[in-house]
């Protein structure tokens, strides 16, 4: 795979400190625990569905960790719970989308710097390009541009919009980091039947754009790659593509049955070593954390999950009037009439 070099070398940040590594572990445990719990919630009827990210914690926490929420903006798909958690997004608001409370979630995307959850595969990649181009319009690049970080999957890479986004961003030198989680699958379709040539990162050279293919299960490598990409984009050198190689260990969603299209053997071989376990071993080996720390992190994760679950369970349906009130900034007489009509007929009952 031929890739172009990055123009800016690394961020200001040096190698990750012990405290940072422990923080990454805590985040990954929190995400892992919330993720596996959410599947249980679905089985228990607390939420109607969920798209787990089991195995993608390193890719998500590592990349989300590089974001500067004072100036960057992040565009997720439907599977970036780990990114949201890492960015400090209100997790009850985030998970509410899986409770079918509100499409896109109840968190404030503008304040959180995280665009609403996106169900259209490839749908928000172009938004990142527009947002990023806006940063360059605001004034000349001074090495401090806000960066748009956009997530998508190996499957999404097939969508025309993703190509248009890469070409636009590269032509306009927009500060975008395209972050592909290549988790081996798009529902039942494996990467080799999806991504011609085998690698999304290999596409970047065709746009004159640098790319980094990274071990997506190594959180330290992901943080490093993302920081380097951010530095490049922030300095005004244009977009970068990161392909984080990982594996979707769970089903596509709680309504999927992977047994129909892949065997347990295939799963074991494809998945490799669990990214959380890898970090744990590393921290142990380097003497950065001990069993007590891991136990503590798990306790914290459990407490957090309980709090989020309580919040989710307490969440009632939104008032129906919001259906009408939130369509426009300036509502219309026709919509007001429909709202009035709806109110009349639903109160009647």
């Amino acid at each position, binding site marked *: 795979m031929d890739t172009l070099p990055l123009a800016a070398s690394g961020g200001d940040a040096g190698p990750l400190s012990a405290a940072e590594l422990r923080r990454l572990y805590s985040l990954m445990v929190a995400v892992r625990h919330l993720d596996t719990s959410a599947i249980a919630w679905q089985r228990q009827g607390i939420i109607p569905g969920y798209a787990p990210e089991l195995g993608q914690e390193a890719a998500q926490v590592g990349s989300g960790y590089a974001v500067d929420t004072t100036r960057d903006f992040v565009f997720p798909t439907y599977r970036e719970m780990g990114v949201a958690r890492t960015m400090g997004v209100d997790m009850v608001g985030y998970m509410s989308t899986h409770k079918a409370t509100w*499409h896109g979630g109840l968190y404030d995307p503008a304040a959180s710097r995280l665009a609403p959850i996106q169900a259209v595969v490839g749908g928000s990649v172009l938004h990142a390009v527009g947002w990023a181009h806006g940063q360059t319009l605001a004034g000349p690049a001074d090495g401090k541009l806000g960066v748009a970080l956009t997530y998508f999957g190996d499957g999404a890479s*097939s969508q025309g919009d993703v190509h248009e986004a890469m070409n636009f961003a590269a032509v306009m030198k927009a500060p975008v980091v395209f972050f592909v989680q290549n988790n081996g699958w798009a529902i*039942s379709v494996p990467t080799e039947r999806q991504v011609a040539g085998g690698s999304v990162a290999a596409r970047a050279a065709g746009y004159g754009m640098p790319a980094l293919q990274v071990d997506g299960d190594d959180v330290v490598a992901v943080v490093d790659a993302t920081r380097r990409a951010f530095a490049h984009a922030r300095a005004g050198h244009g977009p970068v593509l990161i392909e984080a190689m990982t594996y979707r260990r769970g089903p596509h969603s709680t309504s999927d049955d992977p047994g129909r299209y892949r065997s347990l053997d295939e799963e074991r071989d494809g998945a490799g070593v669990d990214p959380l376990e890898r970090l744990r071993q590393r921290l142990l080996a380097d003497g950065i954390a001990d069993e007590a720390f891991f136990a503590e992190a798990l306790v914290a994760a459990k407490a957090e999950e309980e709090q989020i679950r309580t919040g989710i369970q307490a969440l009632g349906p939104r008032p129906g009037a919001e259906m009408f009130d939130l369509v426009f900034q300036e509502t219309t007489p026709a919509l007001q009439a429909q709202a009035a009509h709806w109110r009349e007929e639903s109160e009647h009952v």
Partner: protein
Amino acid sequence: MSNSILESGTPGTEAAATVMSMQQALNRALDEVLAENPKTVIFGEDCGRLGGVFRITDGLQAKHGTQRVFDTPLAESGILGMSVGLAMAGFHPIPEVQFDGFAYPAVNQIVCQIARMNYRSRGTLPMPITLRVPSFGGIRAPEHHGESLEALFAHVPGLKVVSPSNPHEAYHLLKYAATRPDPVIFMEPKSRYWQKGEVDTDSADAGGGAPTGAKVMREGRHLTLVAWGAMVARCLQVAELAAEDGIEIEVLDLRWLKPIDAASLAASVRKTRRAVVVHEAPLTSGLGAEVAQLITQACFSTLKAPVERVTGFDVPYPSGDLEDEYIPNIDRILFGIQRVLEYKRG
């Protein structure tokens, strides 16, 4: 592989009338179409090995091979654009769009290519493409998984549009659509996939009526309820309830949303003199307007009241929690009926 054609056996070996779900009926129709026409090919996202997220193509790849039934990369414009080329090469493509909301990326290929190629080529390059679209709401799904695109499709010259309301209709309409020489958008009401019903596979269209027209699902003389897809079952429930109050409602399953069977609409409303049309799509510029105007045009002097529309609102399809507030429910349909019955000329 539950509900698959592999379990239900070889086509034709069973009794003609069987109880099956709409999923089974559709699966069986596809199996038969594949067996009958070697030029038929089925493809889309997860249609092959998985059998589709709704299992409509379940077992078909195993039975008919990966040449006839296959997965594509994840790109709807690609799937529909590819269908055009396959049709030009003499195939009868039956592509699937995984959910209604993901037909939008393919609109350019559908409107500008599929719908126009026969015309553009002066009939030399027909487009026998049957596009299956799991449609409408009611399953508490994520965003974009509960769309109603019939008004859009019906407005496009060069397309035909059909939606079945029960397993029997599903079997016959799909077999019919998938053997036509013109493009047909086949809108499957996903909330009805698992409902069972009797399917008479023997007759070309057992139960009466040509497969191209609308169908009276229940006779009545006080008012005509017009619906399609999942709303037909709901209207039949409403008619049942109304009957308890002595109101005899005729329920017309429009079936074909393009071309619309204007004659059947007129015949029914000439008798009942009142009509309500029900759909899940938003009100404004929905297909209900067309149906209402066709009725008004044909029955202006016999109509006792303006045709009423009971529809979704002019709002984006809401999340599961508010779905029941959005989709016309029994009460809202009854209110609509009441408005028509109580209408007084001003």
